[in-house]
């Protein structure tokens, strides 16, 4: 990697680490959501470093533009407590379990990644959007169509689930 690429990698890593810690540890959900948006933008920068600009712009379009707005709506519609939903003490041992869930896969998987690196090429090759589109309509047309079907079913199902009147005997 060149020096500039190393600097950009360090910057994006810093954004991702800060955002991730903010997303899991901050007291109010809106701040957590801002941390999540920071993580998404950092990951989009990582995609740009990996020479995948189409995926990077899709990441910004879908995640920052779509999913985060959905989660904002969820925060708004769930009547958050005024002093922050996550500020009251939780059940005992919660921190211990959470730390366990963090440490065990981290140690195991990072040992695997560092000890047995895959045969890597050092410089990524950019694949244009034309070849991605050819792949989408050529060999991978079935998953492409299934995704559209899945999206339609999910939207229709969401409307159906939220439409039913609960509590009406």
């Amino acid at each position, binding site marked *: 990697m060149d020096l500039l690429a190393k600097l950009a990698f360090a910057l994006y890593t810093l954004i991702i680490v800060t955002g991730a810690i903010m997303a899991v540890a901050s007291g109010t959900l809106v701040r957590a959501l801002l941390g999540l948006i920071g993580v998404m933008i950092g990951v989009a920068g990582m995609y740009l470093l990996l020479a995948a600009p189409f995926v990077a712009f899709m990441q910004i379009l879908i995640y920052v533009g779509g999913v985060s707005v959905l989660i904002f709506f969820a925060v708004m519609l769930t009547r958050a407590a005024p002093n922050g939903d*996550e500020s009251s003490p939780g059940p005992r041992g919660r921190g211990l379990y959470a730390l366990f869930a963090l440490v065990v896969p981290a140690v195991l998987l990072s040992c695997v990644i560092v000890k047995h690196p895959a045969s*890597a090429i050092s410089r990524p090759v950019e694949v244009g959007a034309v070849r991605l589109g050819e792949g989408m309509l050529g060999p991978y047309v079935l998953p492409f169509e299934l995704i559209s079907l899945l999206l339609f079913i999910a939207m229709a199902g969401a409307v159906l689930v*939220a439409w039913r009147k609960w509590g009406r005997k």
Partner: protein
Amino acid sequence: MGEKMTPLTLFQLVGLFLICIGLFGLVWRRTLVGMVIAIELMINGAGLSIVAAAQLTPASAVLGQLGTLFVMGIAAAEATLILAIVLLAVRRFNTSRAGELSGLKG
């Protein structure tokens, strides 16, 4: 050790960090929306790992990038459904804390 770290290893370590801290948040958070945020962190880490493995190894780059795009589509569908389910739970129980959703219908 610093000399032996390939770029692929570095990118995969960042993806692993996102997945593990998402798992931490999933256990740590008490509200349903906080859990959704942790799940989105994990999905982002998985996408980063897939694209890094596709771009920095001799594997098919088109397949990896399309796989990540499909993961994004599934994540969008999943977020929609989760929003509807959370709305339903809040309407039913008047809270979005996971520990208080303990009533059974009967």
